[in-house]
């Protein structure tokens, strides 16, 4: 499992490339926000997998913290940031 986990974690980081392209292209701010959100979830999965592969249990806690905070940028964007017309 740990060899599989490390390989999958690396692969998940590669899937961040198209996500990053969307974050850069937009075209709207909402598109960028959603790309960053997906990057966060991918990071959560990668952290859980790296934690298993390396036996560092604390990484699961890092993933948990990221999960708890995942919605915060979206809430701030939707309630506090106006799109440029």
């Amino acid at each position, binding site marked *: 499992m740990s060899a599989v986990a490390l390989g999958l974690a690396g692969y998940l980081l590669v899937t961040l490339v198209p996500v990053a392209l969307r974050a850069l292209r937009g075209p709207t701010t909402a598109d960028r926000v959603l790309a960053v959100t997906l990057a966060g979830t991918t990071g959560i999965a990668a952290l859980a997998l790296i934690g298993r592969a390396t036996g560092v249990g604390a990484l699961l806690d890092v993933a948990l913290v990221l999960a708890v905070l995942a919605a915060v940028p979206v809430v701030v964007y*939707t309630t506090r940031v106006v799109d440029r017309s």
Partner: protein
Amino acid sequence: MAVDVLGAVLAVAGAAFFTAGAVGVLRLPDLHSRLHALTKADNVGLGLVAAGLALTAGSASEALKLGLLWLVTVSASATATYLLAATAHERAPRSGRARAAEVDGAG
């Protein structure tokens, strides 16, 4: 041993959903369909990875934490995608909103 294989298979399947989400977010034509791709990765992708890891977890607390991780992510992702979609709808220019209403009516 069989559990190990099943866990690995689940995790790989989860990664496949992340691939679909990432490609979808890049390739799909508009915000709402991209949000749809995002939720596949958030809910199913992370769910399968967490399930695979929980199956092969060394302790009950670790499995429980993975369950909590998934639960938190699902509720955050549901709220986040709803907020993004609702805000985009609200802020859409009049013509866009009319078009969205038409889609609502047709669907």
